[in-house]
C-alpha cells in the first residue's frame, strides 16, 4: 500500500487534535448550544482514555457511556469481531453505575467545559427512572435514553414498541426538565412510528442509529467469534441505512431535533447526515480506530460548512435541512 492512498482514505494522518481550536459553525439541539455539530457517540468516549488525545470541551457534545442504577459487568469476552467496513460488538453496557458517574466522570467533564449528553441504560422502566431521577439533579446538559441496545436482555424491547415507549416516556418526562433524547434502534420494521411515539410523548429529540444485530463465525472452528454469539454492527457499513432513517424521520417531522450517528468517518459523511435532516452528528466507531477522529471530523465539517452558508445558518439557530421532494 502506498502512501498515496493514505491521503484519500486516512485523513487523520498528521492531524494534530491537541492544538487548541474553536469551530466557526455550531448547532443547537433541543435548546442546547453545541460548539460544533459533531459530538462523540455513547460507548465510544471514555474520559480517561480520550481526554489525553484532545480537549472534549471543543466538541459539540460528549455522549458518555450508558450508565445503569448499579454497576454492570457486561458480556464475556471476546466482545468484538471485525466485519466488512465495520465491527460487531457485544459489550453489553458494562459500566460502573450512575453513582460513580455522578461523582467522577460527569463533574470532571463539566469542569473541563464539555457539553455532556448522559446516556442512560436500563433493563426496565424502573432502571431508567432511577437513573434519570439521579441525573436530573446533576450538571448533565442532556439525557439520552438508550432503548436500543441489542446486547442486553430486553435491550430493544421498548425501542421496538411505540406503546412501551409511550409508557416509559410518561414515566420519565415528569422526572426532569433536562432535554430527553430517545436513542432509536435500526432493527425495526419502520423507524417512523417509533420516532412518532417519542415525539408525541414528551421527548425533546431522537438520536439514531444504534447498532444493527450481526454476528461473525470463525470459519476455522465453525463457531461464533463473540462469546455472546450476536452483537451490534457499527461503522461505515451502516452509514447508508442510517442516512435513510434520518431522512425518513425528517420527512415525517420537519422540526424535531435529530442527532445522527452510524459510520461517520469524515466531515463529508457528517454533511450527508445534515442534508438528510439531522441537527447534529455523533462519531462512534471512527473514534475507536483513531482517538482524534471526532476532532478531525469536526474540523473537516467546519470547512465544508463555510461553503454552505444556508445550511450552516439554519443549524446555528437550531433548524435543520428539509428536502422538498419533487
Amino acid at each position, binding site marked *: *500500500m*502506498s*502512501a498515496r*492512498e*493514505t491521503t484519500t*482514505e*486516512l485523513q*487523520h*494522518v*498528521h*492531524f*494534530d*487534535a*491537541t492544538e487548541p481550536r474553536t469551530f466557526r459553525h455550531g448547532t443547537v439541539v433541543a435548546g442546547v448550544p453545541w460548539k460544533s455539530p459533531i459530538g462523540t457517540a455513547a*460507548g*465510544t*468516549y*471514555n474520559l*480517561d*482514555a*480520550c*481526554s*489525553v*488525545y*484532545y*480537549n472534549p*470541551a471543543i466538541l459539540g457534545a460528549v455522549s458518555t*457511556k450508558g450508565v445503569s442504577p448499579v*454497576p454492570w*459487568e*457486561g458480556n464475556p*469476552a*471476546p*466482545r*468484538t*469481531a*471485525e466485519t*466488512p*467496513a*465495520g*465491527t460487531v*460488538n457485544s*459489550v453489553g453496557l*458494562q*459500566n460502573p453505575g450512575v453513582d460513580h458517574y455522578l461523582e467522577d466522570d460527569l463533574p*470532571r467533564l463539566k*469542569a*473541563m*467545559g464539555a457539553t455532556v449528553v448522559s446516556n442512560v441504560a436500563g433493563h426496565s422502566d424502573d432502571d431508567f427512572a432511577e437513573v434519570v431521577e439521579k441525573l436530573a439533579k446533576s450538571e448533565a446538559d442532556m439525557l439520552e435514553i438508550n432503548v436500543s441496545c441489542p446486547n442486553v436482555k430486553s435491550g430493544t424491547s421498548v425501542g421496538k414498541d411505540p406503546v412501551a415507549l409511550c409508557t416509559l416516556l410518561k414515566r420519565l418526562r415528569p422526572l426532569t426538565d433536562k432535554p430527553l433524547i430517545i436513542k432509536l434502534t435500526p432493527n425495526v420494521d419502520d423507524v417512523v412510528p417509533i420516532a412518532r411515539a417519542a415525539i408525541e410523548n414528551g421527548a425533546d429529540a431522537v438520536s439514531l442509529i444504534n447498532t444493527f444485530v450481526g454476528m461473525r463465525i470463525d470459519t476455522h472452528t465453525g463457531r461464533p*467469534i463473540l462469546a455472546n454469539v450476536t452483537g451490534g454492527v457499527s*461503522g*461505515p457499513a451502516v452509514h447508508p441505512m442510517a442516512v435513510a432513517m434520518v431522512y425518513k424521520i425528517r420527512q415525517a417531522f420537519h422540526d424535531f431535533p435529530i442527532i445522527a450517528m452510524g459510520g461517520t468517518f469524515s466531515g463529508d459523511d457528517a454533511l450527508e447526515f445534515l442534508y438528510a435532516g439531522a441537527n447534529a452528528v455523533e462519531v462512534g*466507531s471512527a*473514534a*475507536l*480506530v*483513531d*482517538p*482524534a477522529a471526532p476532532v478531525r471530523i469536526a474540523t473537516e465539517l467546519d470547512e465544508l460548512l463555510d461553503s454552505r452558508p444556508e445550511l450552516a445558518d439554519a443549524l446555528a439557530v437550531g433548524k435543520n435541512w428539509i428536502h422538498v421532494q419533487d
Partner: protein
Amino acid sequence: MSCARTFLQTNPEGRAYLPSRRTVEIVGHELLTESIVQLTVRDEYIAQHAQAAQFANLYSSNSLQISPRPFGVAEVHDDEVTFLFAVVGRGTEEFRDKQVGDTIDILGPLGKSFDLSEPGRYLLVGGGLGIPPIAHAAQKLSGRSDVQATALLGYRDVHFADEMLMRHCSDVRAIENEQGNVITLLDQWLAEQDGDARNLSDVHILTCGPHPMMKAVASWAFKRDVKAQMNLEERMGCGYGTCVVCITPTIHGNQKVCIEGPVFTREELGWE
C-alpha cells in the same frame, strides 16, 4: 504530527497529550520463518516512551478492515521500534507483504508495562508469539546491576527470537514443543538453584504466551509463592481504553486488558 509539541501540551486536567494515530515509515522488514515477520518502523515517540510489555496498534491500509491489530513492542533502537508477529489472518498477511519504504499507521505506546521496579531475579517466561514483550523486558533490564535475568522461551519449532533475547540477556534457555515446554524450563531452573537461592522471595516471573501456558506458569508460581506478572491477550476494539471491549475477569471485576492491562499480577487475576 510533531511529537515534541504534542508532548509539551497538557489537557485541562494537566495530563500530557499523547499523539494520536499517525503514519510511519517501515525501515526494517524480514521474514524470520515462513510465517513470522520482524517489522521495524521509525517512530520517535514510541521509541522514547515505550515501557516493557507496552504495545502498539497497527492498522490495515485496507479500509474494509478497520479494527486495530495490537502487537507488543519487542525491541527499540534509537528512534526505531521492532515488532515480531505471526501471520495468522488478513491484517498480518497484509503486513507481511509490506516492504521497507512503505508506510503503516500506528498508535501507541499503549497499556500498562511490566513492573520492573524491584531488584531481584527475573524469570522472563515467553511462549511463541508471547516472546516479543519478554524480549523488550529483557532489553529494559539489561545493564541493571540490581537484577539478574533469565529468559525461558518455549517455541513450537523454529527458535525465531533467541538471537534477539541474547542481545539483552546472558542466560537464555529455549525449548521446543517436542522436548517440553516452559514449565520444563522452570523446573530445570529451580533444580539448579541451591543454598540461599532456593528462597524464591526475590524472584519475579514475567510471562506472556498462550493462555494455557500462562495459566500453567501462574499455577507453578502459586505453588511456590513466587510473584508473577502475566501479559494477557484479548480481542480489542480500540486498544486505548475507550470501548470496554477487551475485558478479562479479575478479582476487581471485569477489567480492560488494553489499559488496565495487558499486565496483571497473578493475584489480580486470581489465578492459582
